[in-house]
């Protein structure tokens, strides 16, 4: 089904099947703008409601749904995907690559993102959707939102996390392994550097969100009691959610910082001041971002030591930002600044973010947090950082790379008009909210003295909204009537400007390389000497559609889920069986992964995210056990015999996988087949034994909802069992291929990659066994 040539851009087939990074970038861009319009209209609707406290424009529940979906869409389906639209288009160009490392996975991540968003939108039309704020606090969401739309919205978020995981793996491998020769990691253009740090944060943050959604879905659908019990409840959710949620702030912001840095250099005609300091500061922020989540929990009564620690980390994380923004400002000093539209948005974004950053330091103080928590001061602060720093910064990027994407210039006049409207509208909308700091957020009623501030904010909201209409018109009109842009309209120095606008398939006329710091094209770029690369595949769309149908069925009709699973199985086989060719450049910088092939790096990146997923689920178990006054003694509730047998079985299966690999390397077909079959049998026995154990427990009346010991046991071993089951499906595929003679002469790497997964599942059990059965 794969194809070598891309149909014209007017062809629907191209947009449904493309795997080219530039096309996928355009798809991300259009879709994120669609979600921007939806989330923006929701914002205008509830700002209208807030124009007067007694206005019955929205019912209280409609108001709650509007603010919740606005927040979720803006953060997860607009700003980050807009950043990834630019990243998809620009990163391979900036590093001199032909495409991302895994083009089909790139298309897959787009389609999963799209269908995740569609599920969230559908949830609006199912009685009632999420209505508890984007933070989905507990037990509001688990025990007091018995609406089917909440389930659908949550499943949409689960699909999004799958998309993010796939995308993260792809960008990590691409940036580490597909750089042009001579392009050292430390010399990456700042936008690509910011994307690298972003995806590394995503790698460790999003599995926590997935873990939280799994626990929440389990509470809602299976009846476990993670968040409905006082020992778990609100504080457990806060920990899990904000462990994801605070790095997410920097995940949203970093790509915009990269845009700012690149545009500052281009339009000030000066090298970036303190480039190494900026990179170091961003690395420090990325690391500390995982240690600040507790400042969202100062009012929950958590241990004072922990609160103090989070105060220190929260104040500490502001210091690297000082270095970053001072470096930006120094870059501008004594420079001949060209105030073109991208630069205007960059400068505007810097100014707005500084206000957001300073007000954030207030919230890092426990004393002030007691006063400001849950008020419009917080709303103003995070809109100044995430919307001002993130979204406005990315608009700078959109204007900056628009000529590269389309080959056309946009209207400077309209760009400036949008900038003026944005600055006026944004500050009219959000600054009054700082002044309305006594007003509780997520409540449509407020005291009459705050009416003027709210009315200014509402008018500002409409001005800010109108600024986007100007941008849409500008970008669409210029697509056809804009002046031809040429290769490098801004006189920029990064690699994406050294090729045609828009770039051809394969991106460059030759293979770019940096020799003694100078760019050269060392060889013809293309299919010479190898097979033609493939650029079209229907399977990413089919896989995503099947996942969407299967998940939608869970909240509508189980037959729909059955059909979805059937389609999913068909699509997985189609994906696996498709002959799809994508090549890595032979010349390139790969430090620090020179000796690690791209599949191996991809698997380890994926396993890293799995470590966090299981780590958070097991931590939730330790947490609720610590919080519980009593807990059944080891051996009284769960049968140690079942657990011990399964431990020996799984350890043995790890040995047989290792021996299958050794057999394939030594050319023994019988050994390969035999050890793979043994692994399959052991894995199946493990699941049977687990089923037997569960059946016994159910027989004794111990179910998902029989208290925390049972809930945590069933959920943790269930998720682990699902991983074993997925491994068994892969084993069947491997075994069939091995029977046909595969993996003996070549291709034994496939068994090694499978082994990484299987051994990881074994490691997880190595911890589950003692934690649930012995201690």
């Amino acid at each position, binding site marked *: 089904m794969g194809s070598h040539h891309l149909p014209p851009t007017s062809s629907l087939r191209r947009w449904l099947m493309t795997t080219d990074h530039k096309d996928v970038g355009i798809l991300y861009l259009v879709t994120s703008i669609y979600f921007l319009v939806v989330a923006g209209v929701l914002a205008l609707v509830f700002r209208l409601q807030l124009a007067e406290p007694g206005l019955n424009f929205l019912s209280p529940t409609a108001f709650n749904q509007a603010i919740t979906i606005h927040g979720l869409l803006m953060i997860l389906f607009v700003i980050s995907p807009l950043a990834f639209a630019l990243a998809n288009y620009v990163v391979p160009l900036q590093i001199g690559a032909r495409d991302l490392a895994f083009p089909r996975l790139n298309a897959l991540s787009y389609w999963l993102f799209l269908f995740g968003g569609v599920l969230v939108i559908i949830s609006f039309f199912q009685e009632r959707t999420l209505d508890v704020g984007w933070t989905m606090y507990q037990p509001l969401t688990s025990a007091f939102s018995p609406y089917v739309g909440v389930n659908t919205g949550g499943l949409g978020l689960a699909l999004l996390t799958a998309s993010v995981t796939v995308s993260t793996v792809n960008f990590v491998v691409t940036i580490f392994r597909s750089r042009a020769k001579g392009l050292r990691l430390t010399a990456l253009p700042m936008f690509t550097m910011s994307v690298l740090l972003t995806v*590394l944060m995503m*790698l*460790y943050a999003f599995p*926590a969100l997935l873990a939280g959604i799994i626990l929440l879905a389990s509470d809602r659908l299976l009846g476990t009691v993670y968040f409905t019990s006082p020992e778990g409840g609100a*504080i*457990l959710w806060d*920990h899990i959610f904000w*462990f994801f949620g605070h790095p997410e702030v920097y995940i949203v912001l970093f790509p915009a910082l990269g845009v700012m840095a690149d545009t500052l250099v281009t339009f000030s005609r000066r090298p970036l001041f303190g480039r190494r300091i900026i990179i170091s500061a961003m690395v420090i922020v990325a690391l500390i971002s*995982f*240690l600040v989540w507790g400042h969202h*929990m100062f009012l929950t009564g*958590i*241990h*004072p*030591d*922990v609160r103090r*620690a989070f105060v220190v980390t929260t104040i500490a994380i502001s210091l690297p930002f000082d270095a970053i923004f001072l470096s930006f400002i120094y870059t501008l000093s004594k420079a001949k600044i060209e105030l073109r539209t991208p630069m205007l948005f960059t400068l505007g974004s810097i100014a707005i973010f500084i206000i957001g950053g300073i007000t954030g330091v207030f919230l890092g103080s426990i004393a002030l947090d007691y006063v400001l928590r849950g008020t419009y001061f917080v709303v103003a602060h995070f809109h100044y950082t995430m919307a001002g720093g993130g979204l406005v910064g990315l608009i700078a990027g959109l204007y900056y790379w628009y000529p590269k994407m389309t080959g056309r210039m946009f209207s400077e006049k309209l760009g400036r008009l949008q900038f003026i409207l944005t600055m006026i509208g944004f500050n009219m909308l959000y600054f009054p909210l700082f002044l309305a700091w006594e007003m509780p957020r997520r409540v449509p009623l407020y005291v009459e003295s705050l009416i003027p501030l709210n009315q200014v904010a509402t008018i500002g909201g409409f001005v800010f909204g109108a600024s986007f209409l100007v941008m849409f018109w500008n970008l669409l009109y210029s697509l056809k009537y804009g002046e031809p842009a040429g290769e490098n309209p801004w006189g920029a120095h990064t690699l994406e400007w050294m090729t045609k606008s828009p770039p051809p398939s394969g991106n460059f006329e030759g293979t770019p390389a940096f020799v003694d710091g100078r760019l050269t094209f060392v060889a013809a770029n293309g299919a010479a000497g190898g097979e033609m690369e493939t650029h079209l595949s229907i399977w990413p769309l089919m896989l995503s559609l099947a996942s969407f149908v299967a998940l939608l069925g869970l909240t509508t009709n189980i037959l729909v889920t059955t059909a979805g699973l059937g389609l999913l199985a068909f699509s997985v086989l189609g994906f696996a069986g498709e002959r799809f060719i994508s090549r890595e450049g032979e010349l390139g910088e790969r430090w*620090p*992964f*020179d*000796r*690690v092939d791209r599949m*191996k790096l991809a698997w*380890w990146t994926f*396993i*890293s*995210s799995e*470590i*966090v997923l299981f*780590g958070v689920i097991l*931590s939730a178990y*330790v*947490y609720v056990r*610590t*919080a519980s*006054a009593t807990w059944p003694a080891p051996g009284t509730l769960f049968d*140690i015999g079942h657990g*011990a047998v399964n*431990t*020996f079985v799984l*350890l*043995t299966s*790890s*040995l047989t*996988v*290792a*021996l299958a690999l*050794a057999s394939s390397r030594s050319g023994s077909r019988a050994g390969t087949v035999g050890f793979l079959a043994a692994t399959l049998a052991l894995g199946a026995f493990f699941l049977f034994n687990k089923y037997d154990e569960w059946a016994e427990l159910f027989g004794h009346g111990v179910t998902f909802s029989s208290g925390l010991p049972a809930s945590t046991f069933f959920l943790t071993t269930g998720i682990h069992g699902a991983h074993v089951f997925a491994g068994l499906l892969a084993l069947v595929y491997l075994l069939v291929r091995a029977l046909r003679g595969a993996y003996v002469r070549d291709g034994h790497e496939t068994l*090694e990659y499978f*082994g*990484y997964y299987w*051994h*990881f599942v*074994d*490691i997880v059990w190595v*911890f589950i*066994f*003692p934690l649930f059965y*012995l*201690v």
Partner: protein
Amino acid sequence: MRLWVYLSVFAALVLMTVLELIIFGQPLPRVVVDLSIIGLAGGKAVLIALFFQHLAYEPRSLSAFALLGIGSVIAFLFLSVYSIIELRFG
């Protein structure tokens, strides 16, 4: 990778599991039993990662990926559990 390495590691894993079960039944202070068993589990995980997943023979940069994940989980576990110690025992 030589066969004897796989077999030796497997033997060690089985032995350590047996040791976990033996320690479980000993009349020792609960904290000693628990820490010993968790320590053995950690040791088993390291053996699997180093020799079955071949991290012992791969560049350190690859292990760094996994270590960063483990580090973030340890931070999460420690701070989240510590945050409620006083609520539970205080």
